[in-house]
């Protein structure tokens, strides 16, 4: 699945998007955050405080308990500061 990152999450990881193949036991958005955080120092830094990370599946906000099955694009980003 395609994963995209924005703002300081993107900067800490050092890339704007990538394709990942998490194992089957990674079922929810929260699971995916935990799995990504284990991929190396840059990921651990980006996801060091999971409760502040916001997520979207296919352009709609989702809470961490949301299943990721069938998602085309999952986004991770900090709380929004537009307007």
């Amino acid at each position, binding site marked *: 699945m395609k994963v*995209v990152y*924005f*703002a*300081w999450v993107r900067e800490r990881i050092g890339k704007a998007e990538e394709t990942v193949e998490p194992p089957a036991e990674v079922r929810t958005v929260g699971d995916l955050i935990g799995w990504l955080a284990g991929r190396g120092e840059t990921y651990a830094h980006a996801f060091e405080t999971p409760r502040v990370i916001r997520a*979207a599946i296919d*352009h*709609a*906000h989702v809470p961490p308990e949301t299943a990721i099955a069938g998602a085309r694009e999952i*986004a991770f*980003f*900090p*709380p*929004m*500061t*537009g*307007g």
Partner: protein
Amino acid sequence: MTVPVTIRLQQADFDTAREIAAMTDGRSDVGAVVSFSGVCRGGEGGDAIDALTLEHYPGMAEAEIGRHVEEALARWPLLGVTVIHRHGRIEPGENIVLVVTASSHRQAAFEAAEFLMDYLKTRAPFWKREDRAAGDANWVDAAAHDDAAAARWTKS
């Protein structure tokens, strides 16, 4: 009748007067037009910035704003809605965002404009980075008072 809705995300500046005038062009049913302009401050408390850089999530930003405009149309008897949000580098004094709402009477236009701004600040996928002299930059933290402002629209 379909209510005219304009949603634009753009790097370029916009003409606020032109957007307000467009709300009433060729029609006589509008009795109230409310506009809100968000403008880039030069910093706060003596901490000057060179510019803001606004990052956004293309595709989702349009979709999310569209969902909130739909909700506003369902909640208030509006006759027109325009939302324009800029992205990229924006210097102090420049426009960031514009919301224009039109209705027959003022209350709907006032309330809908405030509702849309409260949701734009907390739900639309935009992030502000403050850029300072000497290459120093930091991402703006989300403000708790913005979350509280958005939350009051879900109480009833």
